[in-house]
Structure formats: C-alpha cells, structure tokens
C-alpha cells in the first residue's frame, strides 16, 4: 500500500533516477566544498571556517535524508519522528556547552599546572635564552 502510494507521488521512475544522480553530484560538490573551506582563507578565523563546514555538512545530511531516505515524498508523519529527534540531539549538545565555557573560565591551579602545554608559548622571540652554565 505504502510503496505504491509513494510511487504515485513520485515523479516518473526515470526522473527519479535523475534526481538521485543529481543529488549524488551535489553531494560530491559539497564534499569538495568543505575540503576547500578547510584549506582556504575562511579558516583564518576558525569559527567562520567551522560554521561554514558545519553548514555544508547539514546541507549534505539534508540531501541524503530528503532524497535517499525518501522523506521528500513522505507524508506528514515524517515531522513527528524527525523533529523531536533533532530537538533532543541539539538540546543535549547545547546544554553541554556551558560547562565547556566554565572549564575555560575556572581552570583550577592544579589543573592548569598539569594541563598539556599550549603550543603558543608565552615566550616571544625577544626573550633571551638562558645559558646552561653561569
């Protein structure tokens, strides 16, 4: 019952194939795009680069969900299932974020001393290097 219905709602079979090929090409282009972003001037400000890459990923995921997973052709039940899942996922991640910031702000002395060394050292080029013997 269901398959026939969704086929009825589909465009004809041939154009369906066309849609899939088109989606495939777009996915390839988007993958190349995120690869380009990672190596471009956008990464000079990391946040901008990250946001761009995540947007590309979301676009790719949407293409897969809508066309490969047929949600484009499904009826309204798709919202009942996908939106709560999306909401819960975002909720979990977003509510973890404040503790990330908190960890930055109140890095305890003990932790700071035992934390990995930053690559960017406080020493600048002007600092003299202390010789080993007096």
């Amino acid at each position: 019952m269901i398959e026939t219905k969704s086929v009825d709602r589909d465009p004809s079979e041939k154009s369906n194939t066309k849609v899939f090929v088109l989606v495939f090409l777009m996915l390839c282009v988007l993958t190349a795009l995120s690869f380009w972003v990672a190596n471009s001037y956008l990464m000079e400000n990391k946040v901008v680069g990250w946001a761009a890459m995540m947007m590309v990923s979301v676009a790719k995921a949407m293409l897969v969900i809508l066309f490969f997973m047929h949600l484009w052709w499904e009826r309204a039940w798709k919202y009942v299932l996908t939106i709560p899942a999306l909401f819960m996922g975002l909720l979990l991640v977003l509510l973890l974020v404040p503790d990330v910031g908190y960890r930055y702000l109140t890095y305890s002395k003990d932790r700071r001393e035992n934390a990995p060394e930053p690559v960017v050292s406080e020493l600048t080029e002007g600092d003299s290097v202390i010789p080993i013997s007096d």
Partner: protein
Amino acid sequence: MNSKASPSDSTKIAKGDKDEGSHTHIELKYQPAVPVPKGKLAVWLFLSTEIMFFTALIGTYIVLRFGAPEGTWPTPEDVRVLEWLGAVNTFVLICSSVTVVFGMEAAKQNHPGKAKKWLLATFVLGCGFLGIKAYEYNSKFEHGIHPGTPRSLLYDRADLNYLSAVKANLDAEILKIEKKKTALASESVHSHGGGEKDLILIRAGLVQWTQKTVGETESPMVRQLVLESLAHQINPRRPNPRVETYLANEAADVKNQIAELLGQQEVVDEDVRQLQERVNAITKELGLEQDETKKSNIEIRLATATDESKAAATRSTEVVDLLAPLESRIAAYQQFNQIHDGLNEHFHLRLPMVIPSGNTWANTYFLMTGFHALHVLGGLIAFIVLMTFRLDSSKAGLMENVGLYWHFVDIVWIFLFPLLYLF
C-alpha cells in the same frame, strides 16, 4: 507485511500479519496511524535512538575538544591524519548510498538481478570504506598513536614522566639489539630501530644529558627548555625557533666548555707528567742511597710525591669525565640537529612523543570512528543476509529498511568527516 504493499489494499484498515500454522482464530484488523509498514516505522524509531547515541559521542567530542587548553589540539600532521583520505572515504560512502538507492529502485521494479548487482556494489564500497579505515588506523597504530597510557606513545607534556618513559623505552631497545647481537654474533645487525651506535648516542647525548641538566640546573626555565628540546628532537611537531635557538646557544656553550676543559686538561696532563718525573727521580735516588736515616727521609718524600701524582691523575680523569658527556652532547647535536623529521621518523624508532592533548584526541577519534565502523560492519552483515534472498519487489520494503540504516551511517560520517579531519 508484504501483503500490505499490494495495491489492492487501499482501505484505511490494513490487514494484520498472517500467522502461518495459526492458533489465532481470527485475523485481527488494525488502524495504523502512520501510512508506512511496521518494519519501516521501527527502523525510523531505531534511527532516532541512533541519533541520540551518536549525539552523545559527538557531544563528548565537542566538550573535550573545545574544553582542551587553548592551542593544544593536535593538527592533522601531528597525528598522521590525511585529510584527503577522509575526503575519499566520504566519497566512497556517498557512492554506496547511491548504489543502495538504485538497488532498492531495481527491486521495486522487480529486477532481482539488477538489484543484487547494485547491492553487491554497495557491499564492495562498504568494504572499501572499512579498508581505508583500517589503513588509517594502521598508520596511527604504527606510530603509537592510540588511546591507553601504558602502551601508547602519546604524552601531553615534556616532563619528568616523559623523560623516564623515553629512557625506559630506549634502554629496552638497546637491550634488544644487544641480545640479538649475541644471538647472531657473526652477522651484522640490521635493526629496524637504527644502528646501535645511534641509539647509544641518543642515550648519552640526549637522554642522559637531559637527565643531568634537569638534575643540576636551578632554573625551571632551563629544565623546561631542555625537556622540550628532547621532545622536539624526537618528534618535531613544527619548527620551534625557541628550542632551536636554545639548542644552538647550548651547543656554542658546550663547545666553549670543551675548549676550556681541553685547556685544563693540558695543564693537568703537564702536572701529571712533571709529578711522574719527580716520582721517578726520587725512586732512582732511593735506589742509590745507602744511608738508612736518609733513606727514610727520601721514602717520605716519595710517598708525598706519589700522592701528589695520584691526585693529579685523578684530576685528569675528572676532566676526562667532564669532557665525555659534553663531547657526546656536541656529537649528538652535530649529528641529529640536521634531522628535520625527528629521530622517531628518521631511525624508525618508537620513542614516546609529546603531543599536547594527543591522548584526548586519540580517545575521541577512535571512539567516534570506531563506533561508526562498527555500524558500517553491521550494515555489511545486513547486506550479506539480504543477498541470500531473491530481491524481487516483495523484498523492496526490506531493502528500503536496510537502505535507511545505511544512509544514516552515511549521514553520521558526513558529520564526522569535517569534525575529525578538517576542524
């Protein structure tokens, strides 16, 4: 289930599943709320739970990655991640998503042969993905980049822990070579871990020197620099002018000290020579002397001279002892400073490395890619099971369900790729 898919059944009330060998007296009718087969609905529900599972993993990654001290997260080069390989894997998974869709379309149009071919293509692509993944894992494992402190070679800081780990590792390596040497006494030793000479030089000129400096110096800055320079020489993460300047200054300083010590050595040697002559002279005198009282006098003089001579000899060996580490240090500097890819790479050694936040990186990387790979494996098993059936239109629903799962696996990778390779 499949009877439901027949076009004749267009009423709102779908028929219940047939119970073969039935004990049910009647066939119950149902009123489904959602116009999809039960299996498909269950797969979607299962995928919702999977979303939460991977959200927890990605949330962990976000918290640990962005909560790591600023500027410590390893770059792809640090941890041997090849970005383009990740992109290739993305492409492989996208291709497999397309093939599984075409497989389902073929099954829907009742072309079982065609469907099976598409499915086989998907299976091969999935295996290809896992193959590339295995290659990537291997390239990290062979550099000791994996979670687990007692076995992995990752250290967050160049500190005393790190130093003792390097020392232990190096000693074990040298012991191994020596054992081999005794075992194959006649043959020349070709260890993958560089020649024994190099290892001994590393031990004397780098590790023991660092140990000595750390023990002797009062300055925490110097202690830090010498440890850092050891880590830098073993595994340079990027040009580090601070350490390089330090090493150059230190080398100049060591050279000066050697020159000074050589000067001292000349003086001491001269002393030794003169004192020896005096001892010889006195001994001769003692041999010629007959008078007993004078003899005892000379004997006293001889004893003093001998003592002085011995003291001078001790001073001489002391100077030699002082000279030895300095010389091996300078030799190590001259030999290893030109190696830009680090000792580990150059001599194919497996010495502990300092990669700040490297452990956290390894934990999250292997966690996420590992669980993703397990899901890929699950999909491949489902494909094998599916291929045992005749994939006509009656199996289209089943193929769609497996396809949905496979697309989900693809979507997870779509997010993991930028997060793990490009961020």
